[in-house]
């Protein structure tokens, strides 16, 4: 166990969770605004942060990942900073917020994913500050119908109970749940009816995440259902079942499907790398005579493959990786033809 522990990643993970814990203490004014009932959520969140940073740090140590991580940051802060920053912001909207590339895979998938992703992200944006005690509400002194919202212990704004603001603030998580449920049903439909998905999906990676999201959303909505329509009679059940499902989700976040949320932004680093490549020298395939990638990418891949223990150098100089994919297929076909030719028969 100890021998497989990645010390450097462990260091980063401990540092991240310590910083997060410190920010909770500071943001909740020495825990005075921290809601003790949410302690289990807090510990699960700290564990998730630890796990996510650990896995991320291990992931960054892989040669190809390290390449893009380093190149991405180096390029961003290079002399092309303004252009690359603009590119980054454009893609942030296009790829991470609107998720256009998923719509290109199919419109139904795009819609389902946007609903699910924004449902989850908005739910986190609301619950994390609440759990950390960064946001809390009090009744304004001398009134019984005006609430005060506090951010990091500072008074932020007032709103009347029963009004539009109150309705949306107190029900914001319900709106998130509805978005998540709509998205999940879109994906469940696909996973149950698409033959290709049925053949390749696994329960843990593809179905369990959806089931978990349904449970979280339904129990979350159940809390409102309970106090609006059942006079709070099922509160304990709803609160506990909701807590269990959310905590399971948090504990599983670093290991399962949802880790892709943290991996996806790497796409932005890749985009900068590709833009830099397009502006520079191109690799021309010796077989087709056409440019097929940036020189930088081909050279970096020679380096990465050699770090991974591959050696694609040709005995007569050059590398098999100098060929474009089409060139590689042609080289194989020619070698095959030559071998057949040598044997004296093309078929056998």
């Amino acid at each position: 166990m100890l021998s497989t522990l990645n010390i450097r990643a462990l260091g980063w993970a401990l540092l991240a969770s310590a910083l997060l814990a410190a920010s909770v203490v500071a943001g909740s004014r020495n825990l005075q605004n921290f809601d003790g009932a949410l302690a289990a959520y807090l510990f699960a969140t700290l564990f998730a942060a630890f796990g996510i940073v650990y896995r991320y740090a291990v992931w960054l140590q892989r040669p190809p990942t390290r390449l893009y991580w380093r190149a991405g940051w180096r390029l961003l802060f290079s002399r092309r900073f303004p252009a690359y920053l603009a590119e980054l912001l454009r893609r942030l909207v296009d790829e991470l917020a609107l998720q256009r590339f998923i719509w290109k895979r199919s419109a139904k998938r795009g819609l389902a994913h946007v609903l699910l992703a924004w449902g989850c992200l908005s739910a986190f944006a609301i619950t994390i500050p609440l759990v950390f005690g960064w946001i809390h509400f009090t009744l304004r002194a001398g009134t019984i119908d005006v609430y005060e919202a506090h951010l990091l212990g500072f008074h932020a704004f007032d709103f009347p109970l029963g009004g539009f603001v109150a309705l949306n603030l107190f029900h914001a998580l319900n709106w998130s749940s509805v978005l998540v449920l709509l998205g999940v049903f879109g994906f469940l439909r696909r996973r149950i009816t698409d033959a290709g998905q049925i053949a390749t999906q696994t329960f843990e990676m593809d179905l369990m995440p959806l089931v978990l999201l349904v449970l979280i959303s339904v129990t979350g909505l159940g809390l409102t259902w309970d106090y609006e329509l059942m006079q709070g009679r099922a509160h304990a059940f709803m609160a506990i079942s909701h807590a269990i499902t959310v905590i399971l989700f948090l504990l599983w976040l670093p290991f399962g499907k949802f880790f892709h949320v943290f991996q996806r932004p790497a796409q932005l680093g890749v985009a900068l790398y590709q833009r830099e490549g397009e502006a520079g020298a191109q690799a021309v395939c010796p077989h087709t005579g056409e440019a097929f990638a940036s020189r930088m990418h081909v050279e970096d891949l020679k380096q990465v493959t050699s770090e991974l223990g591959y050696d694609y150098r040709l005995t007569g100089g050059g590398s098999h990786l100098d060929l474009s994919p089409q060139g590689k297929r042609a080289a194989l076909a020619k070698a095959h033809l030559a071998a057949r030719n040598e044997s004296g028969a093309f078929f056998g």
Partner: protein
Amino acid sequence: MTTTAYRGQEEFFLDPQRCIGCHACEMACAECETNGQLAMIHVDYVDRAESPQTAVQVCMHCEEPTCARVCPADAIAKDELGVVHSANAARCIACSNCVLACPFGVPKKVEAMKLMMKCNLCYDRTSAGRRPMCATVCPSGALYYGTRERMAAMRPNSSPVNEFRFGLQRVKTRVNVMMPKGSTELVVDGGDAR
């Protein structure tokens, strides 16, 4: 989920010399349920100005898949049956590392979808004991999926080879290439493409 009824004794045999360039496999490949109506198989003119030779290429399902090792997103996985799967759609960040590093020139990237896709041995079919789409339609025997015995009976003068050398790198694959009898490896070392 379908129950896996993999027929362990059935293998894929590729004989590029038999390819007549009819593209039937490409049409069939696009029917495979796992790649969304896109053909993953490659049918190329090898050197169109010089000869009418065509060649067909499927994913060879390498034992140590270069594509998976160079993937920065851990998006490509080899399963316990030795099948190297197409990119995990949640993870692939469309960097093209796999496209450029695969020694057989197999993966295809669809930039708009930010997704690499490749042959996964028609997983929906082969995992249920059926032949891959391409092998069911190839009229010339360039693509064959079946038992080793059956292949030996059909091609008495050829040997299936699953070891390749690309320059200094040896690559072992799950898919076989039919070579002159007695051959043990196929060497691709630049040649006239250098």
